[in-house]
């Protein structure tokens, strides 16, 4: 049985089809889930894709956090299910309190759309197990608010516990600690500003995104196999 991924569609999301294509090419069954749903279909993974949920009015992710589906996403995370938030999805997970910190405007108020090199600083998470420690991934970024911030003491705690999973080789946006991706305490929720789903085919300039998405599918598949029939 394939791994099943539910991709949440908010009004203003615009990367849900890219996520579906990338995950599909890696062998997952995908389903787009409208944000007004109160329950998730039977899925192993929840993806919050990039875009501008609810127009990003007030703050990025501030309104999406209150979409009806988010209670179910929270419950999925609480029960150990995998959740990945990419770009706007990362912003939503921070606003929802599922991930630490917050995302500010980029330094110099630059909208960034470019390739970055991202180091995997923790290769033992469900999202990075296909990477060797220290591996660099070539991934695109495409955002205005990727300047991640948390309190200095919290930053040290997060670093010490291995939760600062992904780090830019060259900081593009002012993000504290060069953080590109951070996980929750149980490592089953990951948020990242780069777009792995846009880097899963050589034709697109990189296949490194498949390292992250493939790791996630490996982990979910192991869970599916261990489930009683």
């Amino acid at each position, binding site marked *: 049985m394939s791994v099943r991924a539910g991709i949440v569609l908010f009004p203003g999301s615009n990367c849900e089809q890219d996520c579906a294509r990338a995950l599909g090419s890696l062998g997952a069954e995908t389903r787009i889930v409208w944000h007004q749903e109160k329950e998730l279909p039977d899925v192993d993974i929840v993806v919050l894709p990039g875009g501008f949920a609810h127009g990003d009015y007030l703050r990025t992710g501030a309104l999406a956090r209150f979409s009806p589906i988010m209670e179910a996403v929270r419950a999925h995370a609480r029960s150990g299910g995998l959740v990945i938030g990419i770009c706007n999805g990362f912003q939503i997970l921070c606003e929802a309190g599922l991930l630490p910190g917050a995302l500010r405007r980029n330094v*110099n108020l630059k909208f960034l759309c470019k390739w970055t090199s991202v180091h995997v600083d923790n290769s033992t998470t469900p999202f990075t197990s296909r990477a060797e420690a220290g591996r660099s991934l070539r991934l695109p970024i495409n955002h205005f608010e990727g300047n991640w911030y948390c309190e200095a003491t919290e930053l040290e705690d997060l670093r010490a516990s291995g939760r600062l999973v992904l780090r830019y080789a060259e900081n593009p946006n002012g993000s504290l600690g060069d953080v590109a991706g951070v996980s929750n305490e149980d490592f089953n929720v990951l948020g990242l500003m780069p777009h792995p789903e846009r880097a899963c085919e050589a034709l697109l300039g990189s296949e490194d995104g498949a390292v992250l998405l493939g790791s996630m599918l490996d982990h979910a598949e192991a869970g599916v196999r261990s489930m009683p029939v």
Partner: protein
Amino acid sequence: MLKDGIADPQGQTIEKALPALGLTGVSEVRVGKSIVLEIDAPDRDEAYSRVMQMCDRLLANPVIEKFEVTIA
């Protein structure tokens, strides 16, 4: 408004732009947002406490922002 000590990219950009217009002597520029609303409440205390709740839950992000409420 971003909390004290948190770098404000918008404020910094404005601070750099002002001298170009010959408007000098400016520092510590911080950019915030004001939200004006009408509220149906029996008295000022009730209105204040409800707006504080709105700020805590939605209008501000307590991780990076501070806020103040004034009643006209």
